[in-house]
């Protein structure tokens, strides 16, 4: 039986958890992307087929899923900029924890701009 690798360097705190969140959101976004290209490909089948598929994206449950997807994308995007700064800015590693809280702040501001608009569209819009 293989044993668990010993002596790993999971240190906890901001650095590790932002890395974990970056991986989790990245995988989520990737699997949505695979599905999203397939549903968009239905435009090549017929207008009816595409409209039926996209109609399921306009239900309240999927609307909440879209909110979660956008949240994952916004975090991944801002934390990606933080990774760039850690890698290429001389003071990046020194300020990596501060920058995570900046990422969280920008995330909250962006979602505050997006969520009301999207949720109003999801729950009161429609034909």
């Amino acid at each position, binding site marked *: 039986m293989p044993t668990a690798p010993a002596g790993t360097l999971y240190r906890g705190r901001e650095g590790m958890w932002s890395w974990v969140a970056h991986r989790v959101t990245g*995988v989520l976004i*990737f699997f949505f992307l695979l599905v999203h290209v397939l549903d968009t*490909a239905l435009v090549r089948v017929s207008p009816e087929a*595409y*409209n039926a598929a996209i109609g399921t994206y306009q239900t309240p449950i999927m609307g909440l899923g*879209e909110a979660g997807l956008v949240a994952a994308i916004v975090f991944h995007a801002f934390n990606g900029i933080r990774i760039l700064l850690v890698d290429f800015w001389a003071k990046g590693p020194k300020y990596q924890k501060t920058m995570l809280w900046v990422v969280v702040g920008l995330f909250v501001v962006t979602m505050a701009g997006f969520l009301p*608009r999207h949720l109003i569209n999801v729950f009161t819009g429609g034909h």
Partner: protein
Amino acid sequence: MAHGTAAVAKIDSPRSPYVRRRTTRGNYELYSWVFMRASGVVLLVLIFGHLFVNLMVGEGVHAIDFAFVAGKWANPMWQVWDLLMLWLAMIHGTNGVRTIINDYATRDVTRGVLKGLLYLAFIVVVVLGTLVIFTFEACPPDAPAELLASFCTA
């Protein structure tokens, strides 16, 4: 394994200069690391623009239907936008998942199978998506006119 006469015979003579071991691998992982950062910045712009136009403007997600897509792809700028987004996002995402598989799948067979499935999904999705963007028909002749963009009947 490293004991024995063969190993002894290979010991360098004292004071021989340090020779950096030549790597037999290419710079693939370096290019992949650079690509993740470069494509990430471009994808931030492309995807935020995509989300803004499709979810924030007007009725948001409720405005999306066949005619909406036809209207967007009537503009070559959105064709290029979506094509670039498709390719960059698929390479960026596939490379990210490849890294994760390499990190956690320790058995050779498991790792090989998972990466095989990953690369198969990459090829299917990229080829399908590219074909759809380039062969899209905005005004299919047998479709009901009320489902089509206004420019089909005008």
